[in-house]
């Protein structure tokens, strides 16, 4: 029997939750970023199969190569640690505990693509992360590297969206901007900008030291390597884990103290993700490539376990309400449509559905995606569509009979 966590790479070293690893300990444990590997880090990243961990899962090596081969301009690196997704804790835990790995990765990216500046974009409410990153920066003093500054991101779900991050760094406004122009062409200060999640950068810093073959020794399914996940909900030990990619949902649940009988459904990928019945995904490998092929999303690595006895319609309504609240308020379909979807879902959940609420939900769910400056509503709609699939009977029961079979209650009695 294997012991969990299966593998520790980013989280190796002193246990989490203590003080951030100091520069001395970091270098003693891992050695400095090797100078000779920096030149061929892009081919190495491509061969490693490392996928971005901010949510979209784009290949990191390909992203860096595209930036390195740009025609002109001094580039900027944005290390994205805003982590506005409320169910995710992995980025703040990483920054609070291993700040130097993140900074190594950002420096590596800057050297690889020829960037003259690095911005560490850290969620301002993640105080331990901000403190650890600031102190780490101080510890590094006057090493040879591009100028590096910390910008604390404002609270908010969309503040971590890549164009919103650039907009905030440029103009103090953390709302997404319309593309084009693409950030890779005109981002921070109008310069070509590479926005990369902090976990992706930290893995790049390890791959630079130990090579792509080392990285690929882990991985039990399609996608090689390891990754950080956040386990929430019906688990005794909630929180951040590092897993070998391809570890199953059931294994993660078991390692977190949640048995299959206690879990009704699972939300994968976070508020931007999808619901699935527990029995359908219990043996599913947490593998970004495999999940995408199956119409699911690894996203930023959230495994949310909905306990038996908790109403999925209500849980979904809470998420939809949150997503509507978190609209940046710029685009009509999101301001009105997402709000209306959130309100209708809430009415259904409370047994107060209007006659055509289910039809409205279906129609708005179909017409909302793709109609905004960013993909915020698209993610919310995807989550709701999956909820209608997984909890469809319950949605009907709530709307038409005003009953909840999970809590065994009548909803129309005050």
């Amino acid at each position: 029997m294997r012991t969990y966590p299966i593998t520790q790479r980013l989280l190796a070293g002193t246990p989490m939750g203590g003080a951030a690893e100091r520069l001395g300990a970091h270098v003693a444990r891992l050695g400095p970023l090797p100078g000779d590997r920096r030149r061929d880090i892009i081919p190495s990243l491509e061969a490693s199969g490392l996928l971005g961990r901010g949510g979209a899962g784009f290949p990191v090596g390909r992203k860096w190569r595209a930036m390195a081969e740009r025609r002109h301009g001094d580039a900027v690196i944005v290390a994205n640690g805003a982590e506005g997704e409320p169910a995710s804790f992995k980025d703040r835990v990483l920054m609070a505990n291993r700040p130097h790995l993140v900074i190594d990765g950002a420096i590596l990216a800057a050297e690889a693509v020829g960037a003259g500046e690095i911005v560490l974009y850290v969620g301002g409410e993640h105080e331990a992360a901000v403190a650890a990153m600031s102190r780490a920066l101080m510890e590094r003093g006057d090493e040879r590297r591009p100028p590096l500054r910390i910008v604390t991101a404002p609270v908010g779900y969309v503040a971590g969206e890549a164009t919103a991050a650039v907009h905030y760094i440029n103009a103090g406004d953390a709302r997404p901007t319309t593309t084009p122009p693409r950030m890779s062409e005109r981002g921070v200060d109008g310069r070509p900008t590479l926005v990369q999640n902090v976990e992706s950068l930290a893995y790049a810093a390890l791959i630079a030291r130990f090579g792509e073959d080392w990285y690929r020794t882990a991985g039990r399914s399609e996608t090689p390597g390891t990754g950080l996940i956040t386990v929430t909900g019906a688990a005794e030990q909630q929180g951040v884990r590092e897993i070998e990619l391809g570890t199953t949902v059931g294994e993660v649940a078991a390692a977190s103290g949640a048995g299959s009988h206690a879990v009704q459904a699972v939300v994968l990928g976070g508020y931007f993700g999808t619901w699935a019945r527990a029995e359908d995904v219990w043996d599913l490998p947490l593998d970004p490539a495999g999940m995408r092929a199956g119409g699911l999303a690894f996203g930023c690595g959230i495994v949310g376990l909905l306990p038996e006895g908790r109403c999925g319609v209500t849980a979904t309504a809470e998420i939809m309400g949150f997503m509507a609240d978190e609209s940046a308020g710029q685009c009509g379909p999101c301001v009105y449509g997402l709000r209306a979807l959130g309100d209708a879902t809430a009415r259904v959940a409370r047994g107060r559905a209007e006659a055509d609420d289910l039809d409205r939900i279906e129609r708005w769910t179909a017409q909302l995606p793709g109609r905004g400056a960013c993909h915020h509503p698209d993610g919310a709609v995807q989550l709701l569509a999956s909820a209608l699939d997984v909890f469809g009977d319950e949605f009907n029961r709530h709307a038409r009979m005003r009953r909840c079979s999970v809590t065994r209650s009548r909803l129309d009695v005050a």
Partner: protein
Amino acid sequence: MSRNGERRLRVDWVRCDGYGLCGDMLPELIDLDEWRFPILRAGPVDRDLLHDAQRAADCCPMKALILEPVPADRRR
């Protein structure tokens, strides 16, 4: 850029305020939702609708409807 002159409609969603004129002028290509924000039909604009599409774009009070060449990376 656009090899055979194909054009498409795009909405700048940050600018769009839901006046809905575009949907009234060009129902062939633009539906309106409950709040009068446009729902565009996908794909390039048919040649015989190009003139009407340009007029709808010109009439948008927010300059949020844009008729533009289909970008190269969106073409098969």
